[in-house]
């Protein structure tokens, strides 16, 4: 019986499997786990026969392998990307939250600069269409605020960004695909 792969080979294999897994995030979770397990098992077996380095070389580039797995799952045509959607929406929400938060603080600090011992309630309409109004409660120059949330329009724009960045319209079955599936079912 061939010797077991060394721990260095096992580490190499785990690195390849992990790299592949990172590139399969658009696949359904169950398919991703199944591919990960299968590739690991096959690599370990190949490492028994030809060594870890050669087994990994024969597996090829993990980017290309991931592309082929995605093509196997979704077909060869252009595809949607949940990863792109997640990155775009998360970035937009972070940037907008940061920007609007800065604006809320700027207004409060501006009031305090004008009246260092301000006491009472102030309101700011916020950025029109993007943000709801902000109410400030001042007590001797110290303030707290409420409001300033995203407006429905902002959420609609974020939803549009999600669809556009991930090309989510590709999730909809096209007329051509529907017709070919129908023809295939009639043949079957």
């Amino acid at each position, binding site marked *: 019986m061939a010797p077991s792969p060394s721990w260095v080979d096992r580490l190499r294999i785990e690195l390849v499997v992990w790299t592949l897994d990172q590139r399969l995030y658009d696949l359904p979770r169950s398919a991703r786990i199944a*591919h990960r397990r299968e590739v690991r098992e096959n690599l370990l*077996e190949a490492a028994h026969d030809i060594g870890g380095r050669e087994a990994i070389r024969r*597996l*090829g580039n993990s980017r290309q392998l991931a592309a082929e797995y995605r093509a*196997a*799952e979704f077909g060869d045509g252009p595809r949607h990307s949940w990863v792109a959607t997640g990155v775009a929406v998360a970035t937009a929400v972070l940037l907008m939250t940061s920007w609007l938060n800065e604006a809320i603080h700027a207004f409060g600090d501006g009031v305090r600069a004008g009246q260092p011992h301000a006491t009472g309630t102030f309101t700011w309409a916020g950025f029109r269409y993007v943000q709801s109004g902000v109410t400030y409660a001042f007590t001797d120059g110290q303030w707290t605020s409420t409001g300033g949330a995203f407006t429905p329009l902002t959420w609609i724009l974020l939803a549009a960004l999600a669809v556009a960045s991930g090309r989510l319209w590709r999730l909809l079955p096209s007329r051509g695909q529907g017709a070919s599936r129908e023809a295939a079912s009639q043949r079957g």
Partner: protein
Amino acid sequence: MPPTHDPQLLKGVLSLLLLQLLAERESYGYEVVQRLHAIGLTDVLEGTVYPALARLEREGRLAAHLVPSTAGPARKYYLPTAAGYDALAAGAAQWLSLTTLVHGVLSRPVPTSPSKGS
């Protein structure tokens, strides 16, 4: 050194080869690669075969089941479904028809210069 094969030609018939081999005996991914190497296709790499198996499984032409292994993790064995056998029969007939035609043309002697058109 074993002869190399055009990857594009191989890609076109890889599904048929996999269906045929698995119809003869169910196998797991690495074993299928070894069997391909044993018939002379030594330039077929694992990275080509594993996604091809995944595609055939998604298309419903292969079924898979896990078998515990004493040497490590459970192995995923593949075998053709009824749709896989149908696809194999249809594909093999098309391939044999095509290769007969192509062979008929390519086996003619090549003249030293093309004849003039009439």
